[in-house]
């Protein structure tokens, strides 16, 4: 479809029925899902980096996404009568609780990250065991889900993702003073009026819910959460959460759409299909490396 045709179809004046169908069942949900997931993962990355006061935190690094994978594996591979979104949410939440407990015990955020990494390995091992004993058909479903795609989202799913954007975005702005104070240190933040238990509870609940839903719709997406806040910090001065929420969201949208554009371009080319997670890693890994490169002297 050419750009004018896209515009006509989007505004309900499609020149042919085919265009209308393509627009509403393929293009629109896919684009909305990509944009919404980009924003949500970018915010979760920012939130994890603040919560752990560690620039290398992110849903993927901490094993939270793997928890979602395990939940989906239980739902899909073992055929537990559980919808994938519930499996993913419960999986994310379980790992998040573990990490939260670890973070309270370990003084150093680096230890917490290593802890998250270990959980990630253990969970991946469990997933591998499930995979090896699964039927060929369900295994294929699971493996394709694991590569990640925005293309499977229905219009309804994309709309619920947008709903979560409103929820998480409002929460981030509402709690921005708490999140800013948290950056100054856990004890100091508490003497500034932050309720640690309340904040931890809200973060656990929101992250579990949002990441679970994104993961069940689009697969376990790598790197977006970790990388986007750093892209934002490279281009923008503002660091307070209130001022950076919109900028981080915008970069989340840009990177997610870029990645999806690349995936669609390889599809249209007729050559090898590049899975979304491969593209995200190709875009995201250099960002993370450049952060490490700049920070080798002072991250600990």
């Amino acid at each position: 479809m050419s750009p004018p045709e896209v515009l006509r179809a989007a505004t309900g004046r499609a020149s042919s029925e085919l265009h209308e169908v393509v627009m509403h069942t393929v293009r629109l949900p896919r684009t909305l899902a990509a944009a919404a997931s980009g924003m949500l993962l970018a915010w979760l990355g920012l939130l994890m980096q603040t919560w752990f006061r560690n620039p290398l935190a992110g849903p993927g690094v901490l094993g939270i996404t793997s928890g979602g994978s395990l939940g989906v594996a239980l739902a899909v591979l073992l055929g537990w009568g559980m919808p994938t979104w519930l499996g993913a949410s419960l999986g994310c939440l379980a790992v998040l609780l573990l990490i939260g407990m670890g973070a309270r015990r370990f003084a150093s955020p680096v230890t917490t990250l290593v802890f998250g990494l270990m959980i990630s390995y253990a969970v991946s091992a469990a997933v591998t065991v499930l995979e090896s004993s699964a039927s060929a058909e369900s295994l294929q479903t699971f493996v394709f889900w694991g590569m990640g795609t925005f293309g499977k989202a229905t219009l309804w799913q994309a709309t619920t993702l947008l709903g979560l954007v409103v929820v998480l975005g409002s929460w981030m702005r509402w709690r921005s003073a708490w999140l800013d104070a948290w950056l100054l240190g856990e004890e100091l933040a508490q003497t500034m009026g932050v309720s640690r238990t309340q904040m931890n509870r809200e973060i656990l609940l929101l992250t579990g819910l949002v990441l679970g839903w994104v993961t069940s719709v689009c697969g376990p997406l790598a790197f977006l959460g970790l990388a986007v806040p750093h892209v934002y910090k490279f281009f923008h001065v503002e660091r307070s959460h209130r001022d950076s929420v919109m900028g981080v969201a915008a970069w989340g949208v840009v990177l997610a759409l870029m990645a999806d554009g690349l995936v669609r371009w390889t599809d249209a080319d007729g050559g090898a299909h590049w899975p979304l997670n491969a593209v995200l890693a190709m875009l995201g890994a250099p960002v993370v490396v450049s952060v490490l490169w700049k920070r080798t002297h002072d991250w600990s």
Partner: protein
Amino acid sequence: MNLKLQHAQIGHAGHPPLLELDSWFLEAGGLHVILGSNGAGKSTLLRSILGIHPLLSGSFALEAGSRHWGPENRANWIKHLAFVPSTPPQQVGLTVREVLELSGDASEAARLNPRLEPWLNFRLSQLSDGQAQQVMVARAMLQSRHWVVLDEPTAFLDVAAQRDMWAMLSRHVEEGGSVLMATHDLRGVQRGLASTTPEVRSKSSIMLLRNRVIQSIPVGASLEELELELERALGG
């Protein structure tokens, strides 16, 4: 806004109390310094007062005239007690202005300490420890006009930065505030007190925290007398 502890046991649950204070009264105004060796319970005492560490037993309250209230009312408590930890936060990307505005008006802080003015648009992480600690003290002063509570605030500071910090603290007292500081650095305290005005000193006290009790020594106007008093207390 006097600070009062009654029958308070301070320490960690499941361990013998670090401190037992039958009745401890800190009068508002002045610089109050708790001196004690590492592990004597200074930090735990401060954290208990700040309401981020539970008392083993007893209670404490702020009183002004006939009114008094405890730490249960967090919103009110934090308006009267603000905290400065021993190390300034590391690797914080927030600007000095953003940090100050979490607790009040940045220009008010620049009025309290004109040295802050040129740093306002710097990130906290770009400042030296001494500069960052001054920002943290200014932030605490914006949060509370009453008590500013500091835990080993000068531990990581050189002499010049320590002098700047004491200047800010006596400024806070001159404006009607109170300071409670824990430290093990006796020499630093003597130097710091010597740099304040006789009026600030007359309202100040040094408290020795040893053997689970606090012994209070008024600073008075004469530093020589204080030295004698301290020697007597430490010797005995």
